[in-house]
């Protein structure tokens, strides 16, 4: 459970509003308090990242600067571990596959339940939120047997997507549920059906475009989760990006490529979630 709430579902609606009748002295004291707090916490959050950035730009001799570590991302290979680039590829592919499967599994089910099987709604919600109470480290213990069977068919690390969809369920469910409750699914689908649309057309051309922001939220949260996943891949003996970084750190603790790749992955996730925050804002206003 990386995080239970994510910014996609934070209510961005305006709070009670800026206290207007506040006395000037109290306002000044409050502002001072805010600046101190922002500075202290800003430093706490920024310094580790800066230290990582500095280490990723360390030259051959201590105290010199060089971009070697950033170039190495494409070529780095340590003995006994698959090349770094291949694990980056696998992780990105996993993110795409997981997102696709999550959408295909969850959106039609949730729409269908809303339209025709209301009595299952609570059950579906309970199951979707269940992975929050069953952490990845617990799930992986029971998954061993199942993955032994999967390995009969394929040894590829891409098979991790099966369980990544489960890990993404709570986040994707809440993002999609917020989007679904904002539109009138019944009227939309009845209108489309009475005009002769098939259920497939209803899903793809009527419902999905009307909840674009919610689908985007679900996709980005799922992608961010897959990019940072370590526990399950590591214990099922697959190599994704995080496992690769871990292995490199065990054999060469000070490898500059460690810090450049970590930082690059973080920046990538940052961009993804920034997109999310702005997409969410637009939806909140419109």
């Amino acid at each position, binding site marked *: *459970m*990386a*995080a239970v*709430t*994510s910014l*996609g579902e934070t*209510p*961005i609606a305006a*709070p*009670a509003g*800026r206290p207007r009748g506040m006395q000037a002295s*109290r306002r000044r004291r409050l502002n001072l308090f805010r600046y101190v*707090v922002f500075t202290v*916490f800003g430093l706490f959050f920024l*310094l*580790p990242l800066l*230290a990582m950035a*500095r280490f990723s730009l360390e030259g051959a001799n201590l105290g010199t600067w060089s971009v070697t570590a950033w170039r190495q991302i494409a070529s780095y290979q340590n003995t006994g571990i698959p090349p770094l680039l291949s694990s980056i590829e696998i992780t990105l592919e996993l993110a795409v596959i997981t997102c696709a499967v999550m959408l295909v*599994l*969850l959106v039609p089910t949730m729409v269908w339940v809303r*339209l*025709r*099987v209301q009595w*299952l709604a609570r059950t*579906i919600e309970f*199951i979707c939120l269940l992975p*929050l*109470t*069953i*952490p*990845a*480290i*617990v799930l*992986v*213990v*029971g998954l*061993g*047997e199942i993955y032994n069977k999967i390995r009969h068919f394929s040894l590829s690390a891409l098979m991790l997507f099966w*369980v990544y969809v*489960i890990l993404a*369920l709570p986040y994707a469910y809440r993002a999609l549920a917020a989007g679904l409750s904002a539109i009138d699914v*019944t009227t939309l689908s*009845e209108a489309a059906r009475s005009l002769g649309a098939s259920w497939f057309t209803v899903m793809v051309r009527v419902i999905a475009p009307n909840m674009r922001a919610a689908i985007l939220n679900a996709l980005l949260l799922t992608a*961010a*989760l897959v990019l*940072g996943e370590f*526990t399950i891949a*590591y*214990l099922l003996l697959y190599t994704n990006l*995080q496992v690769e*970084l*871990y292995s490199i*750190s065990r054999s060469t603790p000070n490898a500059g490529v460690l*810090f450049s790749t*970590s930082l690059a992955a*973080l920046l990538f996730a*940052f961009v993804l*979630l*920034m997109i999310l925050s702005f997409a969410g*804002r637009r939806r909140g206003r419109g």
Partner: protein
Amino acid sequence: MAVAATTKTGARLSRAGRRPPTPAWVGTVPFFAYVGVFLLWPTGIVIVDALKNPNGAWTFSNISELGNPLVRGYFIGSFKLALLSSVAGAVFGAILAYAVAAGDPDGTVRRLYIAVSGVLAQFGGVTLAFAFLVLIGPVGLLFHASWYFEFPWGIGLIYAYFQIPLMVLVFLPAIDGLKVQWREASENLGASAWQYWRHVGGPLLMPAFLGATLLLFANALSAFATIQAWENQIAYVVPQQISTALSSEVGLTNVNVADLLALGMVIMVAVVMTGYALLQRRAARWLR
């Protein structure tokens, strides 16, 4: 409701005479099959195997192994770390959330902090341990903290890095729910700032605060990647010991150690999350 009923009859009529109508719940079968195989089945395996010995015979004596000093040690370690990081994360996160909430509700600072919190709350992987290692570890740029590898202080500080942002995300709506009118009313009645917080603001926020703390507690309990990358030599917490037990069955005899530890964890997290849900419901009363 009435509209839904019309749809149902309509669909039935159009198909009448060709074949008996398929019940609507059939549409949810793919979903249930998927979660059945990859969520419910593995959980079932954990619970069943925890109650069996390695030969496959049922036994309840495994449960008593949870009282084994060795096993208890890991649970105590997990508890210590979760308590330290959740209480510290909750207190500092609440302060930060208050500072954010006091500003312009539509301002850049608030938007930036919410967006950044969303990213950092997810940032709990192995990379976080690298970042702190080069900041305050043995080769640290800022200083060399002698307590960096001490449990739970060093790892507790690292956990705060994702616990504080999570607290901001969870607690901000509660602070936003405090109405200006309440403060004005208490000021008109002559209350000091301290009296306001002691008798009005504090009690109103308390359920939300405790609930959020429990959420952070569960979050710390189940975290594994960061602590694994922080110190590989010694297992301090349950997830690490599960990892060790999965790769080698050393230590306890006649017990499916990993399953037993996993079951213990599920119970712990379930208790905490139930508390969270109850407190959240209590808190929601004032947040309309």
